[in-house]
C-alpha cells in the first residue's frame, strides 16, 4: 500500500518529465512551423476575405466578395482552365514517358547510369535558365526547330506566341522538366521488385513481355506510381517560372496559369486580398488532390 502510494507520484513525475522533455525537444520545430507556415497561412486565409490593397491604409471585410468576383473574372477562369489543361497534359505525358524510359533502361544491359544522368539533368538545371534555351529552340524564325521543319517544307507555327500552340509548347517543356525526376523514381521502384516473381511468372507460363508487365511489374509498381502521380500533379499545378520567362501569360491570356494570375493580381495590380483568395483556391486544389490520392487510391495499390 505504502509502496504504491510512493511509487505512483514517482511514475507520474517521470511521465510528465518525459512529456516535458519531448515538448522541449520539439519546441524549435514547433515554433518554426508556427511562425513560418501556420501563421502566414492563417494570415493569407484572413486576407482572402478583405479588399486589402498594397499601399492603401486599412481594409474592409468583404466576406466572400473576392470569391464571387472570381466566378466572373475572365482572367481567373481562363487561368484555371489553362492550369487544368496543363496538368492534364504534363501528368500523363511525363509519367508514361518516364515509365517507358525506365523499362527500357532497366531492360538494357549498358549505359544505365549514363541515361539516368542524362534524363535527370533537366531536374537539377535552373528552369529559368533553361527557359531561355527553350525560347531560342522554339523561336519562330531563327529557332532550330522551325529551321528543321522548313527543310522538310513545313512552315512551323509561332510556338510560344500563338494562342493555338503556346499551352502545348509550355506543356512539352513541363514534360521535359518532370520526366527525369519520375524516371529516377520508377527506376528505384523497378529494382525493388523481387526477381523471384518474374521467375514464378515464367514457371506459370506467362507468355509475353506485355503479360509479364501487366501481371507483375505494374501491380508491384503501384505505390511508386501513386507517389509519382501525386508529386507530378503538385509540381505541374505549380507551373510558374516558364510562364514568367517565356510568355507572361500571353497572348490574350492564352497561357495564363493559376500561380501567374495570383502573382499578377498581388504584385502587379497590388490587390493582396484578391490574390490571397486565389491562393486559397490553389491550396484547396493541392490539398484535394493529395487527399484523393492518399485516401482513395492508396487502398488499391498496396499488396503487402
Amino acid at each position, binding site marked *: 500500500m505504502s509502496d504504491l502510494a510512493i511509487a505512483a507520484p514517482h511514475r507520474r513525475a517521470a511521465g510528465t518529465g518525459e512529456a516535458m522533455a519531448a515538448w522541449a525537444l520539439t519546441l524549435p520545430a514547433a515554433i518554426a512551423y508556427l511562425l513560418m507556415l501556420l501563421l502566414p497561412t492563417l494570415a493569407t486565409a484572413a486576407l482572402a476575405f478583405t479588399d486589402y490593397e498594397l*499601399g492603401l491604409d486599412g481594409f474592409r471585410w468583404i466576406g466572400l466578395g473576392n470569391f464571387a468576383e472570381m466566378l466572373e473574372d475572365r482572367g481567373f477562369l481562363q487561368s484555371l482552365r489553362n492550369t487544368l489543361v496543363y496538368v492534364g497534359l504534363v501528368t500523363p505525358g511525363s509519367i508514361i514517358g518516364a515509365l517507358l524510359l525506365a523499362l527500357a533502361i532497366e531492360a538494357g544491359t549498358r549505359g544505365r547510369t549514363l541515361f539516368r544522368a542524362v534524363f535527370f539533368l533537366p531536374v537539377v538545371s535552373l528552369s529559368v535558365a533553361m527557359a531561355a534555351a527553350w525560347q531560342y529552340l522554339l523561336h519562330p524564325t531563327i529557332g532550330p526547330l522551325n529551321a528543321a521543319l522548313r527543310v522538310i517544307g513545313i512552315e512551323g507555327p509561332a510556338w510560344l*506566341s500563338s494562342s493555338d500552340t503556346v499551352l502545348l509548347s509550355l506543356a512539352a517543356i513541363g514534360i521535359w522538366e518532370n520526366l527525369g525526376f519520375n524516371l529516377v523514381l520508377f527506376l528505384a521502384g523497378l529494382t525493388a521488385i523481387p526477381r523471384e516473381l518474374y521467375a514464378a511468372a515464367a514457371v506459370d507460363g506467362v507468355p509475353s513481355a506485355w503479360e509479364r508487365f501487366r501481371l507483375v511489374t505494374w501491380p508491384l509498381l503501384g505505390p511508386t506510381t501513386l507517389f509519382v502521380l501525386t508529386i507530378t500533379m503538385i509540381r505541374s499545378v505549380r507551373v510558374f517560372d516558364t510562364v514568367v520567362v517565356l510568355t507572361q501569360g500571353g497572348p*490574350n491570356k492564352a497561357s495564363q496559369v493559376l500561380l501567374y494570375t495570383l502573382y499578377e493580381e498581388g504584385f502587379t495590380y497590388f490587390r493582396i486580398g484578391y490574390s490571397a483568395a486565389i491562393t486559397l483556391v490553389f491550396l484547396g486544389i493541392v490539398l484535394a488532390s493529395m487527399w484523393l490520392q492518399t485516401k482513395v487510391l492508396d487502398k488499391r495499390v498496396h499488396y503487402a
Partner: protein
Amino acid sequence: MDTTISRRAAIRVAWALPVGLAMPAIARAQAGTTITVHYAQPFIYKDSYDAILAEFAKREPSIKVNTVTTPNYEEGAQLILRQAATNQLPDLSYQGFNRLRIFAERGIAQDLAPLLRTEGEPVKAGYSPNLLALGQFGGIQAGLAYAASNPICYYNAGLVKRAGGDPDNFPRDWDGVLALAAKIDTLGDGTDGLWYTWNGDDWMFSALLFGHGGRMLNADETDVGFAGPEGLASLKLIERMVKQAGMPNLTAAAARQAFAAGKLGMIFQTTALVRGTVSGVGQNFELRTTGMPVIDAEKGRLPTGGAAGMLCAKDPAKREAAWKFLRFSTGPEGQAMMVKNTGYLPCNQIAIDDPQYLGQFYRENPLFVPSVKQIPISIPWYAFPGSNSVRVTQTMVDNLARIVESRATPEEVQKDMATEVRRLLPRKS
C-alpha cells in the same frame, strides 16, 4: 545630507559621462547624413548612378548615400508599397513614369513644387514646363524626371537595300514604311518585314494613338478617349502591319533576337534599347535608327517613357539631403552623366540645349539622335487613374493580341476594349 548630495552628484556624473562621450557622435551624425536611394533596372542604370554617386560624394562629402536596387520597375513599385506599410521607406526612389500616379494617389510621393519654388524659377535650373509635366500626377509634382525615352524605328540597312529601298531615305510615313516592310517580307529565308512592340504594355499603342492626335481618356478622365476615330485608325494601322506587311506573331524578346540575327527588317521600340541593340547586332549588319513615321504632322505626339525620382523622406535632415541628390541627378551635370551611361534622353533643358554637356556625345553616337529630335512632340506617358491603373494596360494589350492573331476586326476590338476599360475606371460620384 552629505551623502545624499554626493550620491546625487555621483548620479549626475554617471549620467553625464556617457552623454559626454556620446556628444561627438551626435555632432558627427548632425554633420553627416546618411540617405537611402532606391532605383530599378540596375542592368540599365547602374553605371549612370555610379557616376553620379561618385561626383555627388565629392560635392557633398557630409552626405552618405546607400543604394537599394530592384531588378525592374514592377518590383521597385512593390518594394515601396510594402515599405510604406511598414514605415521603412527609402528617402528617395526612382520609379517608372507610369507608376508615379499610384504613389501620388496613395500619398507616398511628396509634392516637390514647394521645394522647387524655394530655389527660384524652375526654368532657370533647366526644369522646363514640359519636363516637369512628366512627373506631375494626382495634382502634385510627384517626381522629377531622371531619364526619358520615346519610341523610334530601328532598321537593318542591308535588308532595306536588298528589298530595293534606300537606307539613306527611309520612308517618313506609314504607307511608305508598310510598303517597304512588305517587300522585305518577300525576301524569303525566314525574313520578316517589321515588328511593332504592341505587347508588354500600352506604351507603343499610345504612340499610335497620340500620333493620330488621340487621347487615352477624355480631359476630365470620366470616359475612354480611344473609342473615337483616332483609336480606330490606330487599331487599323496594327491590322495593316499584320495583313499588309506580314508582321509575325512574336514575343518582344523573340522579335529582338530575330532583329539582332538579321532576320527582321525593322523594329519599332523605345530608344532606351539602342545600347543593347548595338551590342546584340555587333557586326551582323549595318544598324540605323530613325524617328517614328509621322501620322499627323500637326496634332501628332509621342509618349515618354523612363523614370523619375520621388521624395519619400520625412526626417528634415534626410529630406534635405535626398532633395540635394535628386536635384544633382536631374541637373545638367547629372543628366549628362546619365545620358552617356544609358542612352536615355536628358531631362534637363540646359543639358539638352547647351552643347558643352552632350554635343560631342551626340556627334559621336548618331543612333541616339532621332529620339532627341522627337523631344518637342513628346508628352507624358499616360497613367490611368485609380487602383486599376496597371490592369487597364494589360486589358488593352490582351485586346491588341486579337488583332495581331487576326481573330477580331479593329472595330470589334475597339468596342470590347472600350467596354472593358470603362469598367476598370474609378467611379466618379
